[in-house]
């Protein structure tokens, strides 16, 4: 029996790849397996090759695998493009309709199943995904009832007749392939899972859920890949909690509307990707200057410009850290796991109000869209902290105004919401005095700049630097951020087997940079490798600039649109140990 396996389905976009994947993985989730999904898609809606890959395991995994065990193919293109990933002895389940062939040099077993024909027999070729998934499920020898339950849920609202037909399609696919194979394939027999129900979701959903839990009730946003799922989730849910989502005319409206709503007291967020973030820059400065809480989610994708809009990249770091003109305090948080997506969202809304600053929650495409198992989320961790928000303030005397920008020890001033009788004050992006009136006085200017910029001194988020550091003096310290952690851990396992001692640090607080927390790990390591999906080593630059140790820091960079594979990381680490430097992927 095996403890993990990789399954992939490929076909033309719009051909049912998504729904097959959804049902297949829901059923696996019910059985308690850990799952990690990867969607490969182009920005075309219909047509164009697409594939979804799921890694199935009895223990937690957070990385796609280098290889593949089972490929389900709706067309020859899917075989030609993906067969090279198959490990030797792997299996292809393909539609007999196109006379599938195994490409030269690939050692695999092919099951040609009359997928389209069987579906058509049942009334519609639309059901071919059911035939195909039934066949591949049966080869794994997993219980069909669980699968049928997932089918029932997917099609339940379309009526019992449709459900029945789909279940029949699954059955026919399963029966056909089992007859050909002579029963389930032993080499693919998975050990039973722990049976504990996990959540199965994408990062964007975890962020959406987190925002509702955090008390966010408004979202203003403009659609963009890979951020749109957040607004799509929230527009379904927020009305039940009295809130709503506004699809604005552009990202400038989205972010300024969020600023207006936060000013008036409702936790409000916007979400976008690189192009939208670029449009928000002036407004981020307004939030910083007016000390208005603001949460922006930036789901990074391939840049620059329209770049690779549906591909993985981590190249907006500089834009997030340095973006907006002038100098403001700002927090940039990088969740690294699906659980982080939830808990960091809670924390982002708290920090935005406690420090009265803009907070950017940065994900990357793989974390935002990759569907994966998530440990149960803890309701008791939901704690809404609104900082120095005050109510029932005493009445103002004469012409005086509320000191919204009062100089205080920690630089954070009391905040009142419009509507409060004793709270009248002015808010402006022009430099201002304690009540918010424009002021060009140079003494006031310095004091106000210092007040704002010192607010975040010694501010650390939960797990600002997350370390898995079993070695006191590791051969290698591997540093990453965002979705790459699982891949790094997998490479580390291989390295450990080869006698290489590694520590792993995930930087979760990108800005202000957690220099103090990171330094000891750098100090103790013989060599350091920073792994990031961009071409100019943006994270490594932050590390070198803030913490030093430039002489022992090397980079592994990948910017071809694909996430790192464990083998990429492993190879680079070996090279570094052997030659002292790293080739680019």
């Amino acid at each position, binding site marked *: 029996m095996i403890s993990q396996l990789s399954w992939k389905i490929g076909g033309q976009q719009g051909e049912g790849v998504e729904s097959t994947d959804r049902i297949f993985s829901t059923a696996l989730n019910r059985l308690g397996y850990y799952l990690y999904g990867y969607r490969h898609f182009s920005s075309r809606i219909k047509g164009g090759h697409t594939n979804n890959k799921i890694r199935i395991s009895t223990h937690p995994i957070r990385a796609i695998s280098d290889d593949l065990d089972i490929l389900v193919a709706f067309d020859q293109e899917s075989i030609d493009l993906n067969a090279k990933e198959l490990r030797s002895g792997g299996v292809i389940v393909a539609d007999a309709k196109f006379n599938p062939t195994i490409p030269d040099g690939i050692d695999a077993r092919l099951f040609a199943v009359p997928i389209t024909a069987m579906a058509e027999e049942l009334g519609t070729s639309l059901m071919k995904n059911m035939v195909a998934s039934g066949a591949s499920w049966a080869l794994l020898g997993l219980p069909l009832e669980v699968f049928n339950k997932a089918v029932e849920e997917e099609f339940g609202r379309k009526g019992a007749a449709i459900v029945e037909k789909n279940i029949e399609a699954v059955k026919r696919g399963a029966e056909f392939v089992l007859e050909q194979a002579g029963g389930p394939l032993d080499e693919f027999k998975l050990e039973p899972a722990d049976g504990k129900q996990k959540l199965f979701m994408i990062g964007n959903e975890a962020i959406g859920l987190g925002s509702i839990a955090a008390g966010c*009730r408004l979202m203003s946003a403009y659609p963009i890949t890979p951020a749109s799922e957040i607004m799509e989730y929230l527009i379904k849910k927020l009305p039940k909690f009295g809130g709503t989502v506004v699809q604005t005319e552009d990202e400038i409206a989205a972010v300024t509307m969020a600023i207006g709503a936060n*000013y008036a007291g409702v936790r409000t967020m916007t979400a976008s990707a690189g192009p939208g973030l670029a449009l928000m820059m002036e407004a981020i400065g307004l939030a910083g200057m007016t000390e208005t809480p603001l949460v922006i989610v930036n789901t990074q994708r391939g840049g620059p410009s329209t770049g690779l809009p549906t591909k993985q990249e981590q190249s907006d770091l500089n834009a997030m850290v340095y973006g907006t003109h002038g100098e403001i305090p700002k927090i940039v948080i990088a969740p690294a796991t699906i659980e982080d997506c939830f808990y960091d969202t809670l924390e982002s809304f708290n920090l935005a109000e406690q420090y009265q600053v803009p907070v950017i929650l940065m994900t990357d495409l793989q974390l935002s869209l990759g569907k994966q198992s998530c440990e149960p989320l803890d309701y008791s961790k939901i704690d809404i902290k609104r900082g120095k928000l005050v109510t029932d303030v005493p009445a103002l005397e004469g012409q005086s105004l509320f000191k919204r920008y009062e100089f205080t020890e920690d630089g954070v001033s009391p905040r009142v919401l419009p509507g409060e009788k004793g709270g009248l004050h002015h808010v402006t992006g*022009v430099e201002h005095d304690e009540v918010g009136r424009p002021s060009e006085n140079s003494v006031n200017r310095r004091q106000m700049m210092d007040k704002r910029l010192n607010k975040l001194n010694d501010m650390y988020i939960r797990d600002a630097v997350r370390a898995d550091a079993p070695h006191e003096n590791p051969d290698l310290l591997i540093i990453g951020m965002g979705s790459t952690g699982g891949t790094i851990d997998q490479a580390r396992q291989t390295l450990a087997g080869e006698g290489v001692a590694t520590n792993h640090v995930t930087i979760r607080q990108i800005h202000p940079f957690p220099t103090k927390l990171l330094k000891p790990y750098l100090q103790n390591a013989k060599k350091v490798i920073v792994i990031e999906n961009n071409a100019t080593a943006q994270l490594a630059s932050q590390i070198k600039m803030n913490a030093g140790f430039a002489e022992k820091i090397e980079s592994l960079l990948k910017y071809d649109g694909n996430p790192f594979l464990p083998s990429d990381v492993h190879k680079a680490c070996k090279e570094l140990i052997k030659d002292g430097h790293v080739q680019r992927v």
Partner: protein
Amino acid sequence: MATFKEFRNNVKPNWCPGCGDFSIQAAIQRAAANVGLEPEQLAVVSGIGCSGRISGYINAYGFHGIHGRALPIAQGVKLANRELTVIASGGDGDGFAIGMGHTVHAIRRNLNLTYIVMDNQIYGLTKGQTSPRSAEGFKTKSTPEGSIESTLSPLEIAMSAGATFVAQSFSSDLKQLTSLIEQGIKHEGFSLINVFSPCVTFNKINTYDWFKENIVNLEQFPDYDPTNRVAAMNKIMETNGMLTGLIYQNTARKSYEDLVAGFKQEGLAKQNVKITQDEFDKLVAEFK
């Protein structure tokens, strides 16, 4: 009840003596008192320009934002607390050049707020460049040979975008202007009030006298029916946009707040947002 004096503060505006914006400030203060508001119930959100300074000159909650973005900020404020009266304000450059996209979409969205444009046909704060409202041939620092672009008609644009309240006034006519702002505040939806507000420093063509000669007051047409959309459009075109008064009002269309599913009358900002364990469990169950 607050009088207009309570909407005054002790800040001396930095506008040039004689600037049209002074009267608009006074009209907003009077209208706010006349409709029975208290200062804390009013939020004035403004853009950037000479005109944009207005949020600092009214004793109320004031938010001076960034150039061209008064409307999205104001809409955010209103969504967060619909119990507030929200006035957005700014110049013609602010609303019809850099912020034109927001203007059209705010009109379409029809949130219950009032947008007062201080229209001087020029850029005042940046010292005299052309505006989308400048007449063709108008010479400015940026159009030394005269503007060669056509003049934008905000009233026609508003009408075609589905506006539910369109009015225009002249800063010298304090009585009409105050009345229109009152009507705009009371209108349940988006109200656009474009106000001719002469820039005495940089616009030597569109002066107080020039406006007096060129504008027609809708009061001159006793039969004029501001609920008739076609008539309104015709009148705007007939007068080449040089008319004042309430041009169009549609009270049938509901405001955005009233159309949003599940939106309560109580301001969202006042509502309890902590979700219960039960609500949380239901949300989570969808991912099992």
